[in-house]
């Protein structure tokens, strides 16, 4: 089957839906292709809020937000991106409100805001109320609202279509190939511009807040073409996942006054971040918790968790503003935040790295400004580099709407100027070969077993605390697993709804992401943001104030070529000198 649209959007999470909306507003014919029904996208799981300096509760300015973002990213954040972001997000939040998003309200009827980790007033003086929220289901409301607006705009959706290949020839993107789960057929989509917004890849880790479907598909597809992935070593562990399960407990819980306590009941964050304590950025809190656990002050049977204490908060706050996580803790742990301490553990959460883009979402091919014409990316899967080495809470939802919108507008503008490019002769060839190989393999290895080994070893070797030998070992493990992957057999021959085939394909994507990640991480011999090495505990601005670009070596499979890209240390009007990062 062959389809033709001016602009194609891959993924129907917050970024994809925003991009689709704006591409349509730009006059383009738009189709959105998603492997899930749009409202099933993982943006719906985001809880805490979306940060914007509205100043509805306390004085706030975009410069403060920009500073926090840069400092939060341990100065690896591109400051031009941070400036665009901190300004644009204010309008974007108002726009979401005009789209009907049911925000929580202040007593005078404005959008309610609360404190969040790393967001401060006056360049680091004290925590500030910046996160705009809708109870603790902000992502759910954003996803629903954006989907609703797309229904209104009449966006064409191809649901449960898995994108399997991008058609890039001579530096120009020409469309893509997708597998229709319902029929088991491949479809070719011909387009002037393509926007990628397929989300993260948290499923490389064992304990994660990410959905089973977040397998880094499009990052891997990009990478397989010999194109780079940026800053893959920076992966955020969120301090508070429900113990064992990894299900997220929003940072908003600490924004509302929740306190982390170790086995002796001590508020240990006072030792690690004396100024903002429990509201320090995520990398710092996650490390502090892990240190407590390692030093034997953890709680639970295995002493591998930490308590979060809400019991001093009024019931109305817990059951009202934090209804969602109250329900989660009650359902899955049988612990009631109103009267019990809840057991939490750091959980793999967010990819700072991904497909490198410029400020308009245009995908980059190297660190020197080369790009793929007509190919854009936004959302978690892209790396504009707004988040640098560590993302601040609430900045991802902001990223989706700000850069999703910019990518949508840029793609539509591009599509207005150009004709449809020629298509390759047999566009479906690579996808077909991939599926044929998976189907034909008479191998005996089990995809689930390989995935499990990958997730466990990644957790142990490229987790919160890292060191050279372990990561080196992990690079080897990934190569082994990739070899075994060749032997994965798909035993279900059905054409329709063959989820076994899809899962096997997704495992292949995960292995690629893991490869880029582990290799980038071994390479960076410093500690910065979420990348914390025990063998190189210091930040090293002289050598490492630069982005990593990881390329697959197409001639030498298994080898990863590392390149670099400069950090833009200048915003358009404001800039912040790298300083030691203390809170």
């Amino acid at each position, binding site marked *: 089957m062959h389809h033709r649209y001016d602009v194609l959007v891959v993924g129907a999470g917050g970024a994809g839906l925003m991009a689709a909306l704006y591409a349509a507003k730009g006059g383009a014919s738009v189709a959105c292709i998603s492997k899930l*029904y749009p*409202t099933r996208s993982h943006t719906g*799981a985001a809880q805490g809020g979306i940060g914007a300096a509205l100043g509805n509760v306390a004085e706030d300015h975009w410069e403060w937000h920009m500073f926090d973002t840069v400092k939060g990213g341990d100065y690896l954040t591109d400051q031009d991106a941070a400036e665009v972001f901190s300004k644009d997000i204010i309008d974007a939040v108002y726009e979401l409100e005009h789209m*009907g998003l*049911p925000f929580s309200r202040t007593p005078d009827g404005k959008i309610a805001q609360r404190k969040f980790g790393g967001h401060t007033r006056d360049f680091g003086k004290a925590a500030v109320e910046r996160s705009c929220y809708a109870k603790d289901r902000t992502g759910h409301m954003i996803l629903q609202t954006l989907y609703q*607006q797309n229904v209104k705009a009449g966006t064409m959706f191809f649901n449960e279509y898995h994108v399997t290949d991008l058609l890039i020839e001579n530096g120009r993107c020409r469309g893509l190939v997708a597998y229709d789960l319902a029929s088991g057929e491949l479809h070719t989509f011909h387009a002037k511009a393509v926007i990628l917004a397929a989300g993260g890849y948290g499923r490389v880790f064992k304990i994660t807040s990410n959905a089973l479907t977040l397998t880094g598909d499009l990052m891997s597809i990009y990478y397989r073409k010999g194109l780079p992935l940026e800053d893959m070593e920076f992966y955020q562990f969120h301090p508070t996942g429900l113990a064992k399960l990894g299900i997220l407990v929003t940072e908003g819980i600490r924004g509302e006054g929740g306190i982390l306590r170790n086995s002796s009941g001590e508020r240990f964050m006072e030792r690690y971040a004396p100024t903002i304590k429990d509201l320090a950025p995520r990398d710092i809190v996650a490390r502090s918790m892990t240190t407590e656990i390692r030093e034997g002050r953890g709680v639970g049977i295995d002493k591998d968790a930490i308590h979060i204490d809400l019991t001093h908060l009024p019931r109305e706050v817990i059951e009202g503003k934090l209804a969602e996580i109250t329900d989660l803790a009650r359902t899955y742990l049988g612990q009631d935040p109103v009267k019990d301490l809840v057991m939490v553990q750091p959980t793999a959460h967010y990819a700072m790295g991904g497909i490198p883009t410029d400020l308009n979402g245009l995908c980059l091919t190297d660190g020197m400004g080369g790009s793929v014409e007509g190919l854009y990316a936004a959302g978690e899967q892209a790396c504009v580099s707004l988040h640098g080495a560590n993302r601040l809470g609430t900045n991802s939802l902001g990223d989706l709407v700000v850069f999703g919108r910019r990518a949508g507008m840029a793609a539509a503008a591009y599509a207005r100027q150009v004709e449809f490019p020629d298509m390759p002769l047999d566009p479906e060839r690579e996808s077909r070969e991939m599926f044929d190989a998976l189907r034909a393999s008479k191998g005996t290895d089990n995809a689930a077993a390989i995935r499990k080994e990958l997730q466990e070893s990644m957790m142990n070797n490229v987790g919160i605390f890292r060191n050279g030998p372990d990561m080196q070992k992990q690079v080897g493990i990934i190569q082994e697993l990739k070899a075994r992957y060749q032997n994965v057999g798909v035993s279900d021959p*059905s054409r329709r709804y063959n989820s076994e085939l899809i899962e096997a394909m997704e495992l292949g994507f995960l292995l690629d992401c893991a490869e880029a990640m582990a290799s980038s991480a071994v390479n960076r011999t410093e500690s910065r943001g979420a990348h914390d090495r025990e063998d190189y505990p210091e930040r090293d601005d002289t050598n490492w104030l630069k982005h990593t670009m990881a390329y697959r070596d197409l001639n030498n499979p298994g080898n990863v070529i590392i390149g670099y890209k400069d950090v833009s240390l200048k915003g358009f009007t404001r800039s912040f000198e790298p300083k030691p990062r203390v809170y």
Partner: protein
Amino acid sequence: MTQTQVEPTTPTPELTQAPAGGVQLVKLNVKILRFNPEVDKKAHWETYAVQAQPTDRIVDVLNEIKWYQDTGLTFRRSCQHGICGSDAMLINGRNRLACKTLVRDVAKAGGTITVEPIRGLKVERDLLVDMEPFFDSYKAIMPYFINESPAPAAERYQSEADAELMAHSSNCILCACCTTSCPIFWVNGSYLGPAAIVQAHRFIFDSRDEATQQRLNIMNQNTGVWRCRTAYNCTEACPREIPITDLIEQVKRAVMFQQA
């Protein structure tokens, strides 16, 4: 096709203690209604013997079966914690999300858990049904905010009390647990169903929305609120604990007072 033949085991109501970490495993039988249109004429039951922790989610158990026992087993799932709405199914006779139901909620050691696809929508394969009719009903109620008057530079104001009116209905994740538990929907697919009405409620009771009149007219049709016979299955089934029947009754009254 992948007819993995699985031995139905006799229930053994004993607890096995796993060696490490003090994890408690129980033996269970999971009875699943299977149907693959490419080979089966009719749906049939298959039983799988599994070991699970009482605190495991049903979706964990299903994944375990799919990954290690019968790879052909087909169902939707994604987030694993009740937010994406993918995995509504009929578990032990009631609609639930497989990821929000724990083993210990539905079975004791040695017990049996039955899993069927949700009713009233066409089964495409195993536990996966055609969701299009469900989303068509959703689209029929104009599920988007309408306010044509020029927007202010900042936000439109809304009181906390007005925001609270939408608190329940805006919580819906479109999982279809409700609609497919409604005895009217089972027999009468033209009924928009509780999920669509909940969505309509979200906009009707939004103080900023300007299309209340048109929305109430949609609700006032033969396929709208009047088909609800207050059977409460929807309310019992909703994983988001939305008091659905209450909301439907509010919409009925709103239609009545609007016409009065």
